[in-house]
């Protein structure tokens, strides 16, 4: 028995466990897409924009998580549509949305009357303080993510693998990209309770990136990162309970350590695989080849 197993009896611990399961399922699936499609900073932008919604929630006294959901969905679709229609660089849009969301949140919180309870847990998460109402919301989000990804799995894979070819095959590329952004926004809000707005980006990326080194199939990568996310959140939960550490930060640091170890283990094999093969990552041609 692990020390402190008695905590299982507490209601808050059962909530924490349940939220860890739900968050891991969502984050394993979406994190896989985030990693293979290189949307890490994009999801960072989406999560930080959510703080604007949290701030509005404090100011006008509605549930901050509802504000977070609206703002992250708005940020995700806004970035996706502006990139498509206004021809803006993704990088620029992410930077703008990221900081503007935070700025709005800070201003709202500062002019909101009185003390802002839980503010720190929105920023950095606290798995031990997830209320029962939020668990139900998380379950709904998780069901949405699992349902949509399993229905649209093949086209989503095609678009994330080779967007141009997907377009040639007449798949609805823009709609599928927006769908993926939407799911990322939902996933980000789901994870806020666990690790907070500022750390979400790492929980999305680290498990998927760690297992990627050991698999060459997308479904396997998803399943493995769900498992790894769960192990990480559970360990973070136990450690934070035993040693009184902030749970979000503990989970992320564990994740970073696992990622480092994964890289150390996998590198020799990778070098053998790719030795002499030019991979898609270092193209001498790409720079000069926007259109030509």
């Amino acid at each position, binding site marked *: 028995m692990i020390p402190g197993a008695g905590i299982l009896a507490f209601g808050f611990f059962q909530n924490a466990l349940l939220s860890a399961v739900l968050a891991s399922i969502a984050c394993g699936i979406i994190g896989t897409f985030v990693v293979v499609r290189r949307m890490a900073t994009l999801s960072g932008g989406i999560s930080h924009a959510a703080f604007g919604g949290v701030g509005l929630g404090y100011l006008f006294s509605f549930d901050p998580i509802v504000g977070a959901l609206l703002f992250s969905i708005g940020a995700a679709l806004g970035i996706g549509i502006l990139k498509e229609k206004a021809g803006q660089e993704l990088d620029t849009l992410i930077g703008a949305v990221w900081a503007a969301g935070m700025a709005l949140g800070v201003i709202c919180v500062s002019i909101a009357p009185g003390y802002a309870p839980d503010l720190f847990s929105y920023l950095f998460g606290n798995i031990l303080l997830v209320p029962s109402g939020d668990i139900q919301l998380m379950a709904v989000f998780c069901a949405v993510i699992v349902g949509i990804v399993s229905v649209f799995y093949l086209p989503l894979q095609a678009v994330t*693998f080779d967007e141009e070819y997907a377009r040639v095959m007449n798949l609805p590329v823009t709609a599928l990209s927006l769908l993926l952004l939407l799911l990322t926004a939902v996933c980000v809000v789901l994870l806020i309770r666990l690790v907070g707005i500022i750390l979400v980006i790492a929980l999305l990326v680290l498990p998927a990136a760690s297992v990627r080194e050991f698999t060459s199939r997308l479904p396997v990568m998803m399943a493995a990162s769900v498992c790894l996310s769960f192990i990480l959140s559970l360990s973070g939960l136990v450690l934070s309970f035993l040693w009184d550490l902030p749970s979000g930060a503990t989970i992320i640091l564990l994740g970073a350590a696992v990622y480092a170890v994964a890289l150390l283990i996998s590198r020799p094999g990778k070098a053998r695989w790719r030795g002499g093969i*030019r*991979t*898609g990552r270092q193209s001498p041609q790409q720079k000069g080849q926007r259109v030509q």
Partner: protein
Amino acid sequence: MRPVIEVRDVSFGIRGFSILDHVSLEVRKGDFYALIGPNGGGKTTLLKIILGLLEPSGGTVSVLGQSPEKARSRIGYVPQFRTFDFSYPITVREMVLSGRLPKNRFPWARFSPSDREAAERVLERLGIADLARRPIAALSGGEQQRAILARALVGDPEILILDEPTVYVDAPTEVQFYTLLEDLKRSLTILLVSHDIGVISRYITRVACLNHRLYTHDSSEITEDMIEAAYQCPVDLIAHGVPHRVFKDHPGGGGA
């Protein structure tokens, strides 16, 4: 008979710079059409317009009698080698099967047994059946190129469009690749882009030089005039002095 690909007076520019200047081109059924020209001459741009990925600023394009957007699911496309990430976790079979997606009537449909058979057939034909379970990251350059070709062929296209297909493979692999294409030529119309006119010349039936404007000749012969006009430098500099040797005795010459 109506050309399979008909490009009429197409122009395209970016921020005031002209990339294509009133280009007209006809590819007929059964052609193995080579589009050559220097880097930056607009070859890939023209292909993207034919595929409906770019909108021309002037002129019209029809493919198989339809707009490019409508016709492109009947085109097999071999993009320039690195348009996607080769470290993406996907096996050769999965990648090839993805070429059958246009056949799915609904986005949630899964691959049918006939899709899987088509994939096995094309893998077999291109000699990469034993690589089906490999991740694409673990293939050599030539194998990767065949896998990309397999994805283009698995949907039974009527036209095959290739963009610099052999830039990243060595010379023997390149010859193998073109022998393969020559075999496919019997059932397909092929449009190929290359900046290298040496190796392809013996396989093609028609050729044109593109350097913002299109310079054609009504056969597979590449003339010095065309090349000089297109490249604007002495022929032997870019053609390794081969035109006289390679281009003359082509059996398909004059088959326009």
